[in-house]
């Protein structure tokens, strides 16, 4: 069967559409907090949650019992919950005689003893329910034909055409093809996507996933042993799209169902699908460039394996191998199919399970008919009995004469009541969520304070520090400010400078900016004092040991010899983590002092750099290939060799003549220069193009510095030190370490951005141009990069060698202040991580414990990370200065007075706010469903291919956050609510700004973020965006200090 281009394109388009709801999964090295429902963000939140629940078989809200605990703890706004009930009923306009629906729904949510009152049964109807409640005989179901018709309807719903055929077979024959398929596919993915974890790589990966898999699959012993006949399946079509279409036709899936069928196939293992989706769109990703793969490949492999397993099951147990055949089989014998479906879908009544098991192993038609009738009757009675008990329990929870009223209802009214309760239960989670958010909104409003009017000559602080908006910066800022003359600001951790970063010693570029952006500029880290050719003895030994460890042969030859050496590390890490770490750190040579190549290169400079690199490569080649050291050659000889390698000149070279190299030897050396050392034309052009991306022009530098300063409201009163504090998290044996790094830096560490901005802001030329644009930075102000390790709370200063001498006098005071803040933070944080509460009063001990935790490789929770995040506050620090926000707020400094056109606010809303929303929703969904959206327990995780984790030795890639990050003692530590974003700006101004950004407008309008506007020009009223538009919060206007002016001067800056 041959497919034309149209068919192939149709399949490709279908895969594209099907992949839309699947969230991209970034490699763990740069864990990106993302909204697991990102693909559904164009829908309203509640609708997206419902759709995702079906797609990913996940729950979107907490269990009712958990919400009740929050209600009892005062974390739910009771009135908002009551309003939610009333709003629901108002929308339904339903009335049932004798039933106070408001009271019933309230009792159901707050007092009913179970999780669900409405049973999703197959045989529950009003008449049966009424008979049960009255203690009467159940009415008959109807004659045989009626029962058969009902069964066909049931089976139609259970086995729709979009359900993969193997799943249908599993449900009717208990064959577990789906699980086998997942296992085989996982193994195939691990083979192909491996990023260096395996000692032996799969061959032919350059050809792409499907093609390389296909080549191996034909002779894969694992598949042959399983009896899978793949050769014929693979012989018919060459392309993955063609294979998919051909298999769908072979399975006789109706074309109208293909789209949904493909969606179900892809969402079944949405971790792998999400990773492949990310990979196929990440142009800069090394592994994707070399070993390409996309979701069409993934689906094709899945479908080939699925069909092979289906055929194998058909051969062994006689199950049908196509949708039509399967459908015909259950239509012909609905009773048998129903019983099969009951048993193999685990819906069967436990008391009947063994009986059905016995019957279905030898199904005789007459016996099947009899047992089916008996079973249906038993099932019906069971369902009705359970339903009536639940309704009675609910009526008793309502109290009064509710139970009598329930018993008086007619069949139709009972059915109506059940329908209404079912609808409420479907929406109840969202109402609870809104009521919880209402509580947190009020709590925030009550804690906000009106900023004091700025004095005309404010005191100059000793130091100003720009921290990331990350919630973990909040306690550090609070503690630092409490110490004295420190002023802090919040800014997204990439400091508004999106950059591609090529770290010294690393082979590929990292994007240090929010994942939604793609940086244009590349920054290189260059060593200032490196001995290039030398390697520390310990480092060399370590390489040898690690090579041995990863070799497939070493277990046979090296275990006895060197295995014991590894145990030293094992013992050290286990018994003395801190001491071992210090010893280990001493053995490692320090990273050399480096500089960032930040300034844009002129073409001449770029050319000069390339020449320098090529000359260095030639020197290296001479030493390695011809054993000629640098002192034996002159610059002219090297230059001549370069010209020959580039084809500008012909040999023999002076060097060849002097060394008596034959023409063949010289030619071989020149070829090596071209092929191995890349001294060739193509590489030169490529390097020139790359060098064009390096650095920032002066204008760009001025713009980034100005934008960063104005966006946080810092345009005057600069202190002597302006710290640019990036953050990172350092812990041991933690695949999720990068999840604790900076979200605004794409899951990376923000120090390069801090260094870049500091370098720009310290440059006299930049300062001169800034002054022209209204921001005068005093001559004695120095921007100093630093990094905050959030696991230990230590702040480390960087680029101190560049610090002017006059600042060194103040360095001691600065360091003392920072280390005091470190200890105070640790004392605040350690008791929350399970340490003794007394540590809150012992900062030194707390800081020591934090250090130990960071180096303890058995520690599953080195820090709480971003758990419990709830607020994003965009406004002046004065709103919350001195207020303990409990490390729950993203704090973005912003002064609308410096942003007359709203451009800075636009940047904040599109960057930091979206990052905050992703972080918040990643946590939200990881809590409400720890298995489907979260990644389950860390304890069972294994690193897969160096890019992800799996549960056990193979599973779908686990994409969310682990239980240890969001739960404590089995209860949510992170209280899941949507991000409550407060913006301090005039209402109309904020509305206009939001209107201009389609994505942000959709997020806010769709309820993915709760928006509050604090309007300083409207008496500090808080306007809360609700489903009915903006509503003034009843606890506003805020209390203000007497005499403050509300009219605020708007300053103009050209940004």
């Amino acid at each position: 069967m041959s497919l034309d281009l149209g068919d192939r394109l149709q399949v490709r388009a279908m895969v594209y559409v099907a992949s839309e709801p699947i969230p991209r999964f970034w490699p763990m090295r740069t864990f990106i907090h993302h909204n697991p429902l990102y693909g559904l963000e164009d829908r309203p939140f509640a609708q997206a949650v419902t759709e995702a629940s079906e797609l990913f078989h996940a729950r979107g809200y907490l269990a009712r019992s958990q919400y009740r605990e929050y209600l009892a703890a005062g974390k739910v706004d009771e009135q908002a919950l009551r309003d939610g009930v009333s709003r629901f009923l108002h929308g339904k306009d339903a009335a049932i005689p004798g039933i106070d629906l408001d009271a019933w729904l309230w009792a159901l949510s707050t007092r009913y003893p179970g999780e669900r009152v409405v049973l999703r049964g197959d045989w529950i109807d009003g008449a049966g329910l009424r008979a049960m409640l009255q203690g009467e005989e159940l009415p008959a179901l109807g004659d045989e034909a009626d029962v058969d018709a009902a069964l066909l309807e049931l089976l139609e719903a259970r086995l729709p055409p979009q359900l993969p055929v193997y799943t249908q077979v599993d449900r009717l024959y208990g064959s577990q093809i789906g699980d086998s398929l997942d296992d085989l596919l996982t193994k195939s993915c691990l083979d192909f996507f491996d990023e260096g974890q395996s000692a032996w790589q799969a061959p032919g990966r350059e050809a792409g996933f499907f093609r390389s898999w296909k080549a191996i699959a034909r002779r894969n012993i694992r598949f042959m042993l399983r009896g899978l006949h793949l050769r014929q399946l693979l012989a018919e079509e060459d392309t993955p799209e063609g294979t998919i279409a051909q298999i769908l036709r072979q399975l006789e899936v109706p074309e109208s169902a293909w789209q949904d069928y493909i969606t179900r196939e892809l969402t079944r293992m949405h971790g792998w699908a999400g990773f492949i989706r990310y990979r196929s769109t990440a142009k800069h990703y090394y592994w994707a460039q070399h070993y390409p793969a996309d979701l069409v490949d993934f689906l094709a492999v899945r479908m080939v394996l699925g069909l092979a397993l289906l055929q194998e099951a058909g051969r062994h147990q006689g199950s049908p191998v196509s949708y039509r055949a399967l459908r015909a089989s259950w239509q012909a014998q609905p009773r048998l199919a129903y019983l099969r479906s009951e048993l193999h879908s685990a819906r069967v009544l436990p008391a009947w399970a063994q009986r059905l098991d016995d019957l279905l192993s030898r199904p005789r038609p007459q016996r099947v008919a009899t047992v089916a009738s008996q079973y249906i009757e038993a099932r019906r009675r069971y369902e009705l009995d359970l339903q009536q008990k639940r309704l009675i329990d609910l009526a008793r929870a309502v109290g009064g004469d509710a139970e009598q009223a329930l018993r008086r209802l007619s069949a139709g009214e009972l059915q109506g009541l059940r329908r209404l309760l079912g609808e409420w239960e479907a929406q109840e989670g969202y109402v609870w969520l809104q009521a919880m958010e209402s509580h947190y909104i009020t709590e925030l409003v009550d804690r906000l304070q009106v900023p004091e009017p700025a004095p005309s000559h404010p005191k100059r602080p000793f130091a100003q520090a720009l921290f990331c908006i990350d919630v973990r910066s909040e306690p550090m800022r609070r503690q630092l400010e409490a110490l004295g003359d420190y002023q802090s600001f919040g800014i997204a951790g990439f400091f508004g400078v999106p950059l591609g970063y090529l770290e010294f010693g690393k082979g590929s570029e990292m994007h240090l900016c929010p994942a939604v952006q793609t940086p244009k500029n590349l920054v290189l880290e260059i060593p200032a004092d490196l001995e290039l050719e030398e390697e520390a003895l310990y480092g060399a030994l370590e390489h040898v040991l690690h090579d041995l460890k990863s070799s497939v042969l070493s277990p046979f030859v090296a275990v006895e010899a060197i295995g014991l050496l590894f145990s030293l590390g094992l013992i050290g890490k286990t018994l003395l983590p801190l001491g071992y770490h210090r010893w280990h750190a001493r053995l490692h040579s320090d990273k050399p002092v480096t500089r960032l190549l930040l300034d844009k290169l002129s073409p001449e400079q770029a050319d000069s750099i390339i020449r320098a690199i090529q000359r260095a490569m030639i020197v290296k080649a001479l030493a390695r290939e011809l054993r000629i050291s640098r002192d034996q050659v002159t610059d002219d000889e090297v230059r001549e060799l370069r010209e020959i390698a580039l084809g500008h000149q012909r040999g023999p070279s002076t060097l060849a003549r002097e060394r008596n190299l034959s023409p063949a030897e010289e030619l071989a050396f020149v070829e090596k220069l071209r092929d191995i050392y890349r001294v060739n034309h193509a590489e030169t052009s490529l390097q020139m193009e790359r060098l064009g991306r390096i650095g920032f022009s002066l204008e760009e530098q001025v713009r980034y510095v100005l934008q960063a300063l104005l966006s946080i409201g810092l345009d005057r009163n600069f202190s002597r030190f302006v710290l640019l504090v990036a953050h990172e998290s350092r812990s041991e044996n933690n695949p999720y370490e990068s999840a604790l790094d900076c979200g605004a830096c794409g899951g990376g560490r923000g120090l390069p951005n801090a260094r870049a901005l500091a370098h720009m802001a310290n440059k006299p030329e930049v300062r001169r141009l800034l002054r022209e644009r209204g921001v005068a930075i005093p001559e004695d102000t120095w921007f100093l990069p630093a990094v905050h390790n959030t696991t230990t709370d230590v702040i480390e200063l960087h680029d101190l060698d560049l610090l002017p001498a006059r600042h060194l006098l103040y360095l001691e005071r600065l360091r003392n202040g920072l280390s005091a803040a470190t200890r105070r933070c640790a004392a605040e944080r350690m008791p929350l991580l399970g340490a003794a509460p007394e540590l809150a009063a012992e900062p030194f001990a707390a800081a020591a414990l934090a250090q130990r935790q960071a180096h303890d490789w058995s520690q599953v929770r080195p820090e709480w990370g971003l758990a419990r995040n709830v607020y994003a506050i965009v406004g002046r620090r004065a709103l919350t200065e001195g207020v303990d926000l409990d490390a729950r707020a993203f704090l973005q400094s912003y002064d609308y007075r410096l942003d007359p056109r709203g451009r800075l606010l636009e940047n904040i809303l599109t960057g930091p706010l979206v990052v905050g929303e992703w972080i918040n929703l990643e946590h939200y969904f990881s809590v409400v469903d720890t298995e489907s959206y979260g990644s389950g327990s860390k304890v069972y995780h294994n690193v897969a291919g160096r890019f992800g984790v799996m549960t056990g030795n193979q599973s779908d890639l686990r994409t969310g956050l682990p239980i240890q990050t969001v739960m404590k003692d089995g209860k949510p530590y992170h209280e899941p609510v949507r991000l409550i974003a407060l913006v301090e700006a005039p209402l109309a101004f904020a509305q206009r700004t939001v209107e201009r950004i389609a994505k942000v407008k959709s997020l806010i309008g769709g309820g993915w973020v709760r928006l509050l506007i604090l309007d300083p020009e409207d008496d500090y009223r808080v306007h809360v965006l609700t489903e009915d538009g903006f509503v003034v919060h009843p606890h506003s206007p805020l209390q203000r200090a007497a005499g403050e002016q509300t009219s605020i001067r708007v300053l103009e800056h050209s940004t």
Partner: protein
Amino acid sequence: MLAAITVFAAFLVPLFPLSWVFNRLLDSLPMTTARALAVLALPQLGLLLLQYGVAPWALTDPQRRALVALAIFTALFYAFRALSARDLFIWTRLNLSAGLAVIWIAWAMGTAIPVLQILALTWSVPAALLTLLSGALAARLGGSYLGLMGNLVEPLPRLTASIVLTVLALLATPVFPSFFVLFGTAMQLPLSWILPLLLLLPLWGWSCGRLFQDLLFGAYRGEAVEDLSLLSSLMVFLVLSGLLVLGLYGSGGVL
């Protein structure tokens, strides 16, 4: 007459194909307690009968070899059959049949009847406990067919823990006496017979894995139910502790 008595004993101490009667008998008993008592009593009765049947030393070598072969086949057959059983009671009686078949080997090798009676208890006691526990499970969930409700630890931590420990005791996990009995019996056999007999261990390991998968994994999907009482759990724990002591101090030297 002696032969008839011996054959009759094989109805009660299961030996294929007469073991079918033992299994049917257990299945036909309506009450859990009756089943548990039968699990304890039938093998003991069988062994008492055997005392009056053919003496083991009266067996010829070919007869002994045939009996050992049949006993090993019985053990492996029932252990294999149990792999597909998901009802806890059926699973228990099949594995009990497999375990008790080992008693025939010990008898053929000349172990005295009073000793065999103690050895039989190493399988009968955990099997009786499991029978009671399967009844407790059925009373709470409507049946003891596993794998329908998902992880039972969540609603029934004590009952599930009791089942897990008792299963380990039944399936010859090291430190429980059934392991020492199996090992001691195997040591009495010629080398060529040991391997087939010890195939029981991987089969039981597999069986155990399947049972635990149905019992311990997934998410619970049923109604809220009351767990086993603390007293009952303590009783199970005490009995298993007694078996442990028996295993560690008794069985090792018995054979």
